[in-house]
């Protein structure tokens, strides 16, 4: 009985932690994207995880890092 009392809070705590990690990871992915606009007024939005976004976002990260160091 005492062991069960201990296990339930541990399971709830671990579940909450895992949920927080997954939510945060998903939130970061949703906020990472590349929106490209063209002269004809059209645009394309590349979400994190797409091949083009994964190829181009490191360049954006370099811009942000250089800007932080130069500020």
């Amino acid at each position, binding site marked *: 009985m005492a062991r069960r009392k201990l296990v339930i809070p541990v399971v709830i705590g671990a579940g909450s932690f895992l949920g927080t990690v997954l939510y945060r990871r998903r*939130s*970061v992915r949703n*906020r*990472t*994207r*590349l*929106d*490209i*606009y*063209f*002269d*004809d007024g*059209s645009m*394309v939005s*590349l979400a994190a995880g797409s091949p*083009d976004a994964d*190829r*181009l*976002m490191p*360049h*954006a*990260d*370099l*811009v*942000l890092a*250089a*800007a932080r*160091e*130069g*500020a």
Partner: protein
Amino acid sequence: MDATAAIADLRELSTQIETVVVIARDGSLVASSVQDEAADRIAAAARDLAAGADQVRRDLGREALAQLQAATPEGSVFLVVDDHRTAVATTGADPTVGLVFYDLKTLLRQIADGDGKAADEEQERVDGSA
């Protein structure tokens, strides 16, 4: 208005733009709000970003690249392209996208207007001395 003055104006007006770099079509640095070393690194990475976006454009068969936003949780990178230059800016996370694009277009227009005035003055000087 020259590029340095236009950037100073923009930095006064915009509360969202943290860093601005203007690059010429040939890739050379025109002006920036940061030290030269950082500006060169920003310009180099921005050129690679623009080249990659242009490759996407070609793959999709779209018209010329006009502008882009690369959004991350740490901040955003904005690029706006005109006939002669590219303006690059960084902001914090979740900027007002339309406002930043508007400010960068205004910046490029002011620099282009400055070019026109400088050319007119040069022509007047040449005409005057002839």
